[in-house]
């Protein structure tokens, strides 16, 4: 059953354009030029309960604008939106009590006080019963390993610790729908993994619907089966991430370390060489031919070590955007 449905959503902005310099300023004083920017243009899709969707696209693609429309922050220019049966921009309290938006670059925590004070404020604002509040804070702080720093002023916490506290603050009321905008931005790889694992667990425990935007493909790969790819305000792809990879990266990478010198010319018969700096060789081979090629390499070449890998998801997505740009989509 659809928890979120978007039908022909558009959000356009009017921006003021000015030529550079003093003359430009004078002209702008008498005749202002405006331009309409289509941040999101006629997009439609729906999301089922408990799904985790990766919303991906380059900067300025329209991801955050869509998230803001879905959470009720922005008034859409046109189109219909329904989130858990509500029109988001009405911002009814019963709607707001069931959603949460986490933005990696901004926080809701009081900087000068311990995170627990913000949690207490949220307890009152979301009208969470004391017993439930205590249970949730206990549960989430244990899962995120921050129990011992709940009473430390936020300004004294590291970026990763602050992000964990942000997540707790956003999840205290156990939202059914969670909008995550770059939740791991600026975090180190260990902290990124911790946050991903936590979100996965949260989704499984509470059957929460999650929409995630992230430039770290690791986040998307770890959490989302389905992705919606957006660019220039249009949806370019909506489907399984694995299908996108299969479709746009129909090859595997074989990495070989040679035990002795090999003539570079001989290597071309196995596939398209990506790089060769003795003793390391990387070759790109079609999906269906990968096993056969690996067997031949092992048989005919002096191999010390060999691995077969899928291409990096970042490369696939970048290739996908590039292909769409060339096609003028």
């Amino acid at each position: 059953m659809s928890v979120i449905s978007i039908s022909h959503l558009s959000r356009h902005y009017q921006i003021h354009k000015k030529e550079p310099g003093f003359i430009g300023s004078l002209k702008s004083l008498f005749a202002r030029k405006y331009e309409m920017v289509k941040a999101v243009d006629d997009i439609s899709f729906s999301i089922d309960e408990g799904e985790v969707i990766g919303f991906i696209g380059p900067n300025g693609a329209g991801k955050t604008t869509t998230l803001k429309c879905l959470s009720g922050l922005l008034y859409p220019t046109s189109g219909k939106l329904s989130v858990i049966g509500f029109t988001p921009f009405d911002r009814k309290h019963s709607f707001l009590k069931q959603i949460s938006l986490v933005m990696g670059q901004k926080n809701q925590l009081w900087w000068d006080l311990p995170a627990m004070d913000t949690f207490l404020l949220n307890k009152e604002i979301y009208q969470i019963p004391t017993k439930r509040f205590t249970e949730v804070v206990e549960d989430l702080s244990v899962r995120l390993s921050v129990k011992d720093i709940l009473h430390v002023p936020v300004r004294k916490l590291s970026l990763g610790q602050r992000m964990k506290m942000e997540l707790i603050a956003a999840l205290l009321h156990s939202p059914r729908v969670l909008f995550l905008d770059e939740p791991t931005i600026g975090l180190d790889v260990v902290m990124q993994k911790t946050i991903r694992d936590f979100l996965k667990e949260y989704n499984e425990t509470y059957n929460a619907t999650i929409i995630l935007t992230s430039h770290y493909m690791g986040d998307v790969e770890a959490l989302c089966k389905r992705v919606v790819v957006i660019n220039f305000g249009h949806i370019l792809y909506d489907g399984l991430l694995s299908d996108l990879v299969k479709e746009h990266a129909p090859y595997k990478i074989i990495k070989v370390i040679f035990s002795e010198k090999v003539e570079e010319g001989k290597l071309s018969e196995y596939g398209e060489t990506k790089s060769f700096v003795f003793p390391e060789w990387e070759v790109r081979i079609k999906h269906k031919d990968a096993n056969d090629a690996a067997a031949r390499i092992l048989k005919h070449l002096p191999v010390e070590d060999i691995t077969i890998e899928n291409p990096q998801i970042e490369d696939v997505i970048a290739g996908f955007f590039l292909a769409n740009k060339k096609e003028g989509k």
Partner: protein
Amino acid sequence: MRYFRIFLIHFHRVIENRSRSVIWTLLSVFNPLIFLCYWVAVYKSSGSMVGGWSLSEVTSYYLLLTFGGSFLIAHIEESVAIEDIYEGGLVKYILRPFSYFWDLYFGELGWRLFQGAIGIMIFILFSIFFQSLTTIVSSPLLIFLTIISVILAYTLSFLFKMLLGFSAFWLTEFRGIQSTAEIIILIFAGFVVPLQFLPSMLQQASFILPFAYMVYYPILALQGKLDIVQILRLLAIQLLWISFFACMYRLMWNRGIKIFTGVGQ
């Protein structure tokens, strides 16, 4: 009860930042004290009454202004305009199932109460040492009505400052309008001189503007210079202005929020 608990959580934050409150209160004490020194000199050379005011009335007025500056005038316009609208901080408020207005109202009330309490302490200290130079309302009924007028004065200044902050929905430069408003408040709320000392044209203007009802008249009531009818009239005018600003608030909020883009978020 929920509102009271939210207020207490905000107040806890104020106590944590007490040094900030003390500095701001001392700053608001500074101006009236300078004016007070000036008036003491005027009375020494002119006699016991100036413009119908005795020295003790003028002294009380300026001392109570320290309370006026720290309790009655809200200081939220800058954070509303810059932090919330320009930098997008409003996002966190509008996604909560709680009114932005009340969240800020209780947050600011904590600051005002704390700083106002320091202002009152300064007044009490001064009264102990210079008893003959201070006058204050003494009848229980008038005290009760004056307290109501003080609460309404805070609400009025809070609403006005909110509207001032909301101008940032449409203006890209907020500082100009903020500075203009500060000067107008300084003159027409009675921070420079009691309004009775202003030229008659400015006095007339002050009656039709809302600023005198934020500071000047509540301070006269605190001094005991207003009788019951005058205080009731003050309450009625304050309520009228509050109703007008509340309508403006709704109008500006409903329109502004539609063009808010959450930039910076």
